[in-house]
């Protein structure tokens, strides 16, 4: 046996955690299996456009979605918890999207990534669905065209907060999602040349 684990130190009288293992035990006691689940969300990238490329950047080494336990993009809906709809969805694709969503097992969450998935974006045409939330449940909306990897990570963390708060209840019981915590920067604050003059 090469592995030895030190005897877990009991929490001090003040109640703070003193070791990593202790912290983990504390969290499991507090949140149960949801604390584990939140750190092992398996995303299903439903990538139809450039947002998919940005998701790939998020998954790659620089931003490294593995730090959040989601390094395993699943291309089978039966082995995924988190659907990331990245890109515009046309009327012919929507039944496919819904079928994939229905094939995911509970509990499951959905991120609507970027302007196109959330609102149709600039594609105000006969073929493009003007926001997938008209036709399927969405937990978190990510702003951006496409969203920066930081935004994607923030969206993932928002899902993690949902997991911690709502736990293993099925998505039918959970209702809507939490608000995304970050706000996009005001255009004027980016410097001269951005935004519209008042």
């Amino acid at each position, binding site marked *: 046996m090469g592995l030895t684990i030190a005897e877990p130190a009991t929490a001090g009288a003040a109640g703070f955690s003193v070791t990593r293992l202790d912290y983990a035990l504390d969290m499991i006691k507090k949140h149960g299996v949801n604390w584990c689940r939140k750190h092992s969300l398996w995303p299903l990238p439903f990538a139809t456009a450039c947002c998919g490329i940005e998701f790939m950047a998020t998954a790659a080494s620089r931003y490294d979605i593995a730090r959040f336990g989601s390094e395993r993009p699943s291309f089978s809906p039966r082995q995924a918890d988190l659907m990331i709809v990245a890109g515009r969805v046309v*009327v*012919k694709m*929507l*039944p496919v999207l*819904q079928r994939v*969503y*229905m094939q995911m097992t509970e509990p499951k969450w959905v991120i609507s990534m970027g302007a196109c998935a959330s609102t149709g974006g600039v594609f*105000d*045409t*006969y*073929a*493009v*669905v*003007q926001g997938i939330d*008209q*036709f*399927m*449940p969405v937990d978190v909306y990510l702003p951006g065209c496409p969203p920066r990897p930081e935004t994607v990570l923030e969206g993932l963390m928002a899902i993690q907060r949902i997991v911690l708060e709502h736990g293993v209840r*099925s*998505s*039918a019981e*959970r*209702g809507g999602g939490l608000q995304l915590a970050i706000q996009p920067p005001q255009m004027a604050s980016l410097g001269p040349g951005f935004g519209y003059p008042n």
Partner: protein
Amino acid sequence: MTLNDAIEALKERFPDLGVQPRPLIRYPDGRDSGQFWVRVPAERLLDVCRFLHDDPRTKFEMLCDLTCVDYLNFPDAEDRFGVVYSLLSLTHNHRLWLKVFVNDPQPTVPSVTGVWKGANWMEREVYDLFGITFTGHPDPRRILCPDWFDCHPLRKDYPLTGRGERESLPVVTRESA
């Protein structure tokens, strides 16, 4: 063999068509682009295409593109639709464009899939988006729009945002999923 020889051959074979090559583009200084199109009536299209494909002077082995233009509200347009055939001769390295003009109701053009097999999907696309019927097509289905679509979206009288198709889709809720 130059394009002139090909056009002369076409005139010689079809004297009744009054073949008159016109340039695709004419620049402001009067020059043209050296690319020419020929008007062909729909009922003679198959004969013309078969001839252009087979004759040693023309030898248009390749159908580069098959598309359509809706001339609704176009100034000075006489016909509603123009089906455009873009031909290329790999042997002689020359190109020719054919235009077939058809009108509502029931714009119909004979299918050229018997001459160029590659016309199959292109004719399906033109049918899908413009509603032109290709008689004799082996597989006359839509190719881009969903099968339940009942409009032809690239027609000029079709609104850009559609007629409610994108709003009238089935809804999946948390309860039903």
